[in-house]
């Protein structure tokens, strides 16, 4: 059972490299546009997060990186 799990994971990770992306690298003009960034100005986004975190009970799940030009 455990071997099967590991095999599935390795296969899955191996499959990563063979799935053809449906958005080609040369079609990313819009995604690479700075206005499409979730956090265009980090100095400002971290300040705003701090304003809320200091006053609200909720915290976490602030964001993740990704998107953009997908270059290199």
């Amino acid at each position, binding site marked *: 059972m455990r071997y099967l799990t590991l095999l599935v994971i390795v296969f899955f*990770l191996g499959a*990563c490299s063979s799935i053809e*992306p449906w958005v*080609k*690298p*040369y*079609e*990313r*003009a819009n995604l*690479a*546009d700075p206005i499409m960034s979730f956090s265009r100005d980090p100095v400002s986004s971290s300040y705003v997060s701090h304003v809320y975190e200091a006053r609200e009970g909720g915290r976490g799940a602030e964001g993740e990186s990704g998107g953009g*030009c*997908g*270059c*290199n």
Partner: protein
Amino acid sequence: MKQIWKQPLLVTIVVMLAMGMNAHAAQVLSGKATDFTLKSRSGKNIKLSELRGQVVMINFWASWCGPCRQEMPLLEALYKKYHGLGFTLLGVNVEQDSSKANAYLRDVSVSFPILYDTKNSVSKTYNISAMPSTVMVDRDGNMRYLHHGYKPGYEKEYEKQIKALIRE
């Protein structure tokens, strides 16, 4: 709770690092470079097969791509240095809307031919899977090397391959 997470996190990180292990090495290609005809900045159509006899470096780029812009001045330097020795460079712009590319070229002037692949037919034919991508074609029209992406230092490899292909 924390104890349970420590090890899986470590393993996952190791696997992720493993996935990033491959150092840059140009991919070796073989076979004839598929012929294409694209409109160039000068207005003329440029056909790849008409450049037989020269070493051709085909660079796929876009104005929105950071590494592409970083590479431009270095490509210009290579073009200037080897152009008279049987080498040419084609800057294939992959943007569907060429206006941004032209605006960029007004600020950063290059002397090598710029071709417009607005329908992305050539990008598809050459299976472009990274931005930028560079294909080295030898004097007989065979594809020899493929470079994915650009990082400072790649231009040294470009130069090595150009010199070797010119000497062939």
